[in-house]
Structures are given as structure tokens and as C-alpha cells.
């Protein structure tokens, strides 16, 4: 498995490195790791499905006990099937999607049409980045996502989790010359990345109280208590941000600026399911603990309803699907979060069903958008000859989404209803059932809206500015273009008619989550049950809602007008961002007022006074003051030079006297028998004096104190305090080991120097071996300092004043009115 993850990394990086050479063939290369993963998963499938997970482990920092443990159990297998299976189809689909690009033009799609909608600020002369980069980052994403679902270690899971956020950021913002794409990418990474940090805190809380970071060990021996509850809330917040749950859902519709293959892959089938995946993993362990169930169910319920309602309002097919995804993710939270295996089994079926129908639907939208140049339902006037396959695929997938028999979506919905009817013996279970029914009615309605829109039922010449509706005649999509979507639709039908083909996987995955469970087989026909009655109710209500769609739309418009003053999650995001900027600006203005003397005074006083209060009580004995007569002479030189440096008003002279202090210190080291320190000190002093003089040449030779009279005593006071503080610190620290019996660190190091460090110079061995990491950090700082010094010193290299901070520009882009702008600007 490590090899396969590494393959993703290598292939991804090579594709990116190859630049424009490959063109759209990059997607063929990108398919290799996905194919390899699929093949591997198939070879392992029989063992894994029989309940024998495949595990691999690699320790990367043994001292910190950090290991990457991979564990392929049946649930992970289902996720791998999603990530790599859909990934493979997406690669094939991208070949068609980017067919006329040849890697030369934009990777943002939608170029094929006649009515190119102008996008503000996208008038740059530079061509947008090549599709190769898109393909490469997509492979990297697939690798990260596989890491998320395969890892058994919480910290490794977090790292992969963040990698998916980063790659998603790069993919959303792939067309980096378009301000909307940048704003959307930023919003996505702020929300999911911020949630990721909260997730890390939560994982650490859970890991520390559980005593292990292994998911499998946590499952075997679940911890509990206040710390765990706090950790769970943090983990859930992380999961909610990733899976676009309310109130963090605003980034997902924004992310639809990405090219459609990306939206289909990341933002419907895989990445957004990471949060669901985590909830599914942890629910069996923690669902019974205090906050878990109320929190997950409440958030999931709100998300499912709001997503469905907003989806019903959209004219843009892609946005309709995006809000539909939000709604479905809420649904999955309801199923996996309950912590009951009957309900979770329905969740697994939904996971598969949703990936199949939603990816296919996105592909259909991509085909329409790519061929017609629009995906606004008001511009589509019935698709003509040659479009039958696309329409059939869209209709089948939408029917599965709506929950019509005999498709996979119907099975998942029925199983969910059955689960909540029969097994929800916890508080609020009935309420959740009602929410699911209402949410499913909305789902039916927006699925119907999608299909009707595809068939041109919403065609509105007024909205199209008098232009003729698009019929697609003359632009028939090629077979290769719609084939991947058709394969998914075939899966939807076959798995619906003969659920036995996924039954083994679903049952094994349920057992992987809930080891002691006995899942029921997945079946299309479960008899005349209450769930069936509810399904029929949903279908009936959904049809009714679709029939009166004009009135529903009118009603929604009124309600949204009424609700307009209320803050949306978009406003919340912008508000938080603006708030942070304002607070940071004020805080900086207060703390960093620009006065160097005040900075220095504050820094040194804090550094000295804080420890001094503790040290002063320890000051009970003094070492011998003078060991050898040489000390007297050296100290006399140091004192004289130090006093001189603070009295003279000649810069170069002052610098030289400081140098004299340093040399005399080196002499003190020699007297104490530390030639290595002396040598270092000596060379440092030489060089720093030279550099000092080098810089001081630019300043006047002398200076005059022009500060108010009061400041001189104040400065003397600060200096005295610092001097006394350092003095006390030196005395106390040199005497601190007097009462301790254990051998000191230095003795240990002296002993270890010869056998472990293979050398006799202990200082050097400490520097390069025992504390090698520190040295690494220090030389890195040196490099940064050197670069900084040069860029500060080089005159004539002023920052361009016209260059506004990028961030504000992006905030402005967010401030535009949301609904209209989404329809117009969010074209992939």
C-alpha cells in the first residue's frame, strides 16, 4: 500500500513537472495510479471482505512514536473503491472534457460555447495554467484521500486530511488569474483548514486520554470522560467543515468554479466525504458519549433541509447539484452519526449510491456546459438529436438521487427509513426520521428540477436576453465523453436491480465498523413495510412539489426576500475574516507603535523580570569570585571596555569597544580551559566587528542624544535592571546543581561522546550529533537572516506601492451579492 501511495506522489509530481508537454494526455498518465489501486484493491478484496484487514506499518520518527499504519478493512475498501474507481472514470472523462484544449488554453472548462460570459478581471494576457497541472494535483489529491481512508493512526490521518485540503485549494484555484477562483479557493482552504486545526486539537485530546492514537485500538478500548467529550466536539467541527455541514457549508457551492471533473471528483464523490468517513469511523466508538449524537444529528438535520431548499432555488445546474450534495452530506451524517449499525449500513449504501449518481450527474452537467457554453436551465431549450444517451444517463442518475425504484438510491433511502423506523430507540430518533422524509421530498423535487431543466422545461427567452435557447443541435457530445457517466449509470441500475453484487461489500464494511453487528442483506424488495409506505409518500409529495414548481419558486423568492437581512453562512465567513483583520490591525497598531527604544525595553524587561522573581529567592550562596589572577585582568578589561562603549559618542569607537568586550570574554574562556568556545567567540567577534563597521559607515560618525531629559535616567534604570537580572541568573544557574545527586546532563554527554559520537570534541559532537536537529534549525535561521539582510540592505528595491494586498481584493470579490453572482460568475 505504501508503494501505491508513493506511486501517486511520484506520478503526480512528474505530471506537474512535465508542464505542458503532455497536454490532455496527462489524464491518461493520471489514470495509472488509480488503475493500480483498483487492481490492488481487487486482489485483496476476498480476504478483506472475509474480515481480515491488510495492515502495513512504517515508523518515521521512532523517538516520538510516530508511525504511519495503513489498514485496509472492508469499510476502507469501500472508500478506496470510491476514490480510485471514480478517479479512473474522472480521468477518462477529463480526456473528453479537455478535448479541444490541447494543453494550450484554459483548464477552467466551458470554453466550447458561443456565449462566453465575461468574468470580471479575467482579462489577463497570460494564458491560464495548463491542464497538466490539474491532472497532477488531482493525482496528488487521490493519494492524500487514499491516505485518509487507509491510515489507522490519528495523526497520520490528520496529515493526509490536511493534504486533501491543500490539494483541493490548488484545484479550485487552478485558474489563478480569475479572482473568483482565487476567492473560492481561499474560502475553501480557510474553512477546511481552520476546521483541520480544530480537528488536530480534538484528535490529540482523544489520543492522549485514550493512551493510543491507533483507531483500531481506540475501538477496542474506548476512552471516556470530559476530555474525550471536548475532543469529540473538536473532531466533529473538523468533520463538519470538511463535509460542508451547516454553518460551514458556504465553501462548497463557491468551489464550483473549479472545472467540472474536479467538482465531480472532489466536491461530490470523494473529498467532502472525508468528514462523513471520520464520523462513520468514530460513531461506533463514541456515539453513546454525551455530546456526540445530539450534535451530529442536529447539524446533519439542519444541513439536509437547508441544502435541499437552496438547491430548489438554483437555475445553474451545477449549483443545484452542489447544494444537493450539501443536503446529501447532511443525510449521510444522520445515518453514520447515529451510532447504530442498521442505520450505518444504510449510510454505506448511500455512500456508494451517492458517489455513483452524483458523479454521473456532474459529468452530465459538464457535458452540457462544455458543449452548449451554458448550464443555466433558462437557456436550455430541449436537447435534440444525438443527445439521447446523455439525457438517459442524467435521468437515471437523477432518479436514483430522487430515490425511485429499482435504482441504488431507492435502496439506500429505503434502508435509511427502515433503520430509523425500527432501530432509532434514542431521543430525537422520530424527529430525525421526519427530517429525513422532508429532506427526501426536497431531494425528489430538486432531482425533478434537474431533469426538467435538462429537457428544457425551464427555458425562458426573457432570461436568455432574447437569445434562442440552446438545443445542442450540431454539437453532439462524443461517445468517449459520455461513456464514463454511462458506466456509472449502469452501475446505478445494476446494483439497484441486483443488489447482491454490493451486498458482500456493504455487510463486511458494516461489520468492520461495528464488529459485533449482524447486518441485514441489501435487497431491493423488503416487503410491504412502513419504510415502503414512507418511500411512496416521499415520491408522491415530491411529484406534487415538482408539479407546483412555479408556485414553490415564487414562495421561495418571497421567503428569501424576508430572510435576506438575516446573516447567511457566507456573511458569517466574510464577517469573521473582516473581524480578524480589524482586530489584528488594531492590535498591531497598539503593540507595534514604531518606537525602537520601547520595543527593546519591553523585550528585555520581560525577559529579565519574569525569571528574576523566581531566581531572587534562590540567591543564597555565591561561588568563589576569583579562581586565578588572570581573571582580575580580564574582568578589568571587560568592565572598562563596556563602560567606554556606553559613554563614547563615536559610533566606530563604540563598536570597537564592544569588540574588545568580546575578545576579553574569549580570554576568560581560555583562562577557564574552554578553547573551543574561545575560538568560536574570537572568530565571531572579529567578523561581527568588521560587519558592524561596514554598516556603520553609512551613518554619521557621532551622535548626540536628543531625547528628553527624563529618558536618560530611565535608560540607566532599564540597563541596571537587565544587568542585575543577568548577574543573578548566572549565579543561580551555576549553583543550581549543588543539591542534586544525579549526574548532570553534561556528564552524560561527555560519557556518550566517544562511543556514540565517535569523537573527542564534545562541543562539536553536541552541535552536529546530539543536538543536530537544533543545528539544522539554526542554519536554516541563518539562511533566512542572510536573505532578509540582503533584501533589506539593497537600496532601490522598494515594494511596488500599487500592489494592493491580495487578500482585500478577494474580500471584495466575496462582497458581491451572492445569488446572482453565483449564477453568473461561478462558471466552471
Amino acid at each position, binding site marked *: 500500500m505504501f508503494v501505491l501511495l508513493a506511486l501517486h506522489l511520484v506520478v503526480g509530481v512528474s505530471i506537474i513537472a512535465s508542464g505542458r508537454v503532455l497536454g490532455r494526455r496527462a489524464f491518461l498518465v493520471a489514470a495509472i495510479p488509480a488503475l493500480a489501486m483498483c487492481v490492488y484493491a481487487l486482489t485483496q478484496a476476498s480476504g478483506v471482505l472475509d474480515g481480515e484487514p491488510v495492515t502495513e506499518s512504517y515508523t*518515521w*520518527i*521512532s*523517538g516520538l512514536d510516530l508511525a504511519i499504519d495503513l489498514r485496509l478493512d472492508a469499510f476502507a475498501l469501500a472508500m478506496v473503491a470510491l476514490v480510485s474507481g471514480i478517479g479512473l472514470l474522472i480521468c477518462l472523462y477529463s480526456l473528453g472534457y479537455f478535448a479541444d484544449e490541447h494543453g494550450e488554453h484554459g483548464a477552467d472548462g466551458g470554453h466550447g460555447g458561443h456565449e462566453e460570459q465575461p468574468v470580471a478581471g479575467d482579462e489577463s494576457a497570460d494564458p491560464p495554467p495548463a491542464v497538466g497541472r490539474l491532472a497532477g494535483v488531482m493525482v496528488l489529491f487521490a493519494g492524500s484521500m487514499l491516505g485518509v481512508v487507509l491510515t489507522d493512526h490519528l495523526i497520520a490521518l490528520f496529515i493526509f486530511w490536511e493534504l486533501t485540503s491543500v490539494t483541493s485549494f490548488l484545484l479550485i484555484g487552478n485558474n489563478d488569474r480569475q479572482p473568483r477562483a482565487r476567492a473560492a479557493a481561499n474560502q475553501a482552504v480557510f474553512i477546511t483548514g481552520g476546521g483541520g486545526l480544530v480537528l488536530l486539537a480534538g484528535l490529540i485530546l482523544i489520543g492522549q486520554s485514550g493512551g493510543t492514537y491507533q483507531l483500531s485500538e481506540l475501538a477496542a478500548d474506548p476512552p471516556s470522560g470530559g476530555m474525550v467529550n471536548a475532543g469529540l466536539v473538536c473532531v466533529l467541527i473538523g468533520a463538519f467543515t470538511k463535509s460542508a455541514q451547516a454553518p460551514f457549508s458556504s465553501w462548497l457551492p463557491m468551489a464550483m468554479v473549479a472545472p467540472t471533473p474536479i467538482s465531480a471528483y472532489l466536491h461530490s464523490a470523494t473529498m467532502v466525504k472525508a468528514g462523513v468517513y471520520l464520523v462513520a469511523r468514530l460513531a461506533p466508538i463514541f456515539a453513546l458519549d454525551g455530546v456526540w449524537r445530539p450534535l451530529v444529528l442536529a447539524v446533519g438535520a439542519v444541513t439536509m433541509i437547508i441544502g435541499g431548499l437552496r438547491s430548489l432555488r438554483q437555475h445553474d445546474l451545477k449549483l443545484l447539484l452542489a447544494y444537493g450534495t450539501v443536503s446529501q452530506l447532511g443525510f449521510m451524517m444522520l445515518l453514520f452519526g447515529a451510532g447504530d449499525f442498521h442505520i450505518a449500513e444504510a449510510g454505506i449504501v448511500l455512500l456508494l449510491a451517492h458517489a455513483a449518481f452524483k458523479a454521473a450527474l456532474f459529468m452530465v452537467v459538464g457535458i452540457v456546459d462544455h458543449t452548449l457554453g451554458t448550464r443555466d436551465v433558462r437557456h436550455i431549450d430541449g436537447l435534440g438529436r444525438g443527445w439521447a444517451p446523455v439525457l438517459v444517463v442524467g435521468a437515471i442518475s437523477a432518479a436514483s438521487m430522487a430515490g425511485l425504484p429499482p435504482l441504488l438510491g431507492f435502496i439506500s433511502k429505503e434502508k435509511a427509513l427502515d433503520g430509523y423506523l425500527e432501530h432509532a430507540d434514542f431521543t430525537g430518533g422520530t424527529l430525525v426520521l421526519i427530517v429525513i422524509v422532508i429532506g427526501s421530498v426536497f431531494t425528489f423535487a430538486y432531482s425533478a428540477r434537474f431533469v426538467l431543466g435538462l429537457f428544457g422545461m425551464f427555458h425562458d427567452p426573457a432570461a436568455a436576453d432574447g437569445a434562442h435557447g440552446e438545443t445542442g443541435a450540431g454539437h453532439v457530445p462524443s461517445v468517449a465523453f459520455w461513456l464514463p457517466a454511462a458506466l456509472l449509470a449502469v452501475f446505478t441500475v445494476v446494483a439497484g436491480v441486483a443488489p447482491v453484487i454490493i451486498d458482500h461489500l456493504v455487510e463486511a464494511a458494516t461489520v468492520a465498523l461495528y464488529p459485533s453487528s449482524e447486518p441485514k442483506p441489501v435487497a431491493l424488495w423488503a416487503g410491504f413495510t412502513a419504510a415502503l409506505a414512507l418511500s411512496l409518500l416521499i415520491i408522491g409529495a415530491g411529484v406534487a412539489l415538482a408539479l407546483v414548481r412555479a408556485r414553490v419558486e415564487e414562495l421561495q423568492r418571497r421567503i428569501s426576500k424576508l430572510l435576506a437581512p438575516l446573516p447567511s453562512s457566507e456573511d458569517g465567513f466574510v464577517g469573521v475574516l473582516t473581524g480578524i483583520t480589524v482586530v489584528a490591525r488594531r492590535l498591531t497598531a497598539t503593540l507595534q507603535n514604531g518606537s525602537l527604544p520601547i520595543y527593546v525595553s519591553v523585550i528585555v524587561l520581560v525577559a529579565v523580570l519574569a525569571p528574576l522573581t523566581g531566581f531572587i529567592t534562590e540567591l543564597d550562596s555565591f561561588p568563589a569570585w576569583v579562581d586565578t589572577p588572570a581573571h582580575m585582568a580580564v574582568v578589568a578589561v571587560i568592565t572598562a571596555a563596556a563602560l567606554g562603549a556606553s559613554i563614547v559618542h563615536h559610533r566606530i569607537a563604540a563598536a570597537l569597544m564592544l569588540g574588545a568586550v568580546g575578545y576579553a570574554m574569549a580570554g576568560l574562556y581560555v583562562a577557564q580551559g574552554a*578553547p*573551543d568556545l574561545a*575560538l*568560536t567567540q574570537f*572568530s*565571531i567577534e*572579529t*567578523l561581527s566587528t*568588521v*560587519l558592524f563597521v*561596514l*554598516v556603520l*559607515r*553609512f*551613518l*554619521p*560618525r*557621532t*551622535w*548626540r542624544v536628543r531625547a528628553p531629559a527624563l529618558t536618560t535616567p530611565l535608560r540607566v534604570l532599564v540597563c541596571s535592571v537587565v544587568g542585575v537580572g543577568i548577574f543573578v541568573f548566572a549565579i543561580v544557574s551555576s549553583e543550581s546543581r549543588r543539591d542534586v545527586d544525579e549526574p548532570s546532563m553534561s556528564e552524560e554527554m561527555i560519557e556518550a561522546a566517544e562511543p556514540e*559520537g*565517535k*569523537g*573527542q*570534541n564534545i*562541543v*562539536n*559532537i553536541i*552541535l*552536529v*550529533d546530539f543536538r*543536530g*536537529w537544533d*543545528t*539544522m534549525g539554526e*542554519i*536554516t535561521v*541563518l*539562511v533566512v*537572516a*542572510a*536573505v532578509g*539582510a*540582503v533584501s*533589506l*540592505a*539593497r537600496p532601490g528595491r522598494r515594494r511596488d506601492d500599487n500592489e494592493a494586498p491580495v487578500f482585500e481584493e478577494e474580500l471584495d470579490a466575496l462582497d458581491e451579492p451572492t445569488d446572482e453572482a453565483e449564477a453568473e460568475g461561478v462558471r466552471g
Partner: protein
Amino acid sequence: MVILDTATKVLYHSILVLALYFVLAGHNRPGGGFVSGLTVGAAVALRYVSGGAAAVRTIFRVPAHVILGAGLLLAAGTAFVPLLLGESILEHASATVQLPLFGSVKLNTVILFDVGVDLVVIGLVMMAFAAFADDNVRPPSTPYPTSEQSAPAHRRTADQ
């Protein structure tokens, strides 16, 4: 000036040899990459005092930032290569070999790390000279004109 120039000619290369000794012997005797780099820095400073920035610029064929980066890369490389070989990070290997003339010599991969540190320090010094040095070794007669407001104030103090 003649004395300085002549002394530089003699001393410059001697100091470089000393620096080389420091980095090679550092593991067992006083020295090490850090000191060695500083010593090279001192030699560079000597060149600067006698020949100005032009003399400094001709010392190395590669730009200062390349030295800097190469040093960090080398140090990081020695830190991470053991990881690839299955050891823990920054693990070092050593071997004792018999060489003609030198006798028994102990070789240690830690020297590579030290050379990396050495190069970083050298690069830092070179960059400092690149940033602040100019061909006019003597202090400029007028203060460096950074801004118009401060210049008169400086001149007043300088004249007193």
C-alpha cells in the same frame, strides 16, 4: 597600504588552510563547521580591507546565495539520507581506514553535516558583504542619502 596588501597575500591563503583544518579536525580538536566558516569570513574581511568589494566578488565563482543554499541542502541531505536507508534521522556512520602517510584515519559522515554548516556560514558572510560592501573602502564623505528629512540633522551632528 603596501604592508597590508603584502600581508593579505601571505595571510589570506594561510587562513583558508586554517579554516580547512578547523572543519576537518572539528570532531576531535577545537574547530568545527561553524568556526571554520567564521574563519573564512575573517579571511574575506581581510581581502575586503585591502582590495574593496571587487576583491571580495572575485573570490568565488558562484554567487553567495548558491553557497548558502548548497550548505543548507548538504546539511539537510545528511540529515535525511539515513532516513532513506532505514536509520533514524541525522544518524551518522563512521569507519577507520589505514592510509599511507597518514596512518590510521577515522572517517565520519558527520563531516558532511559540518561542511554544510560551514558553507551556510560562508554564504552568510558573503551575502553580508554583497549587501553592505562597496568599492570605496574609505567611509563616504557624505552620509548615505536615505531620506531628505534626516540628512540635514545628521550633517549638523557630524559637523560638530
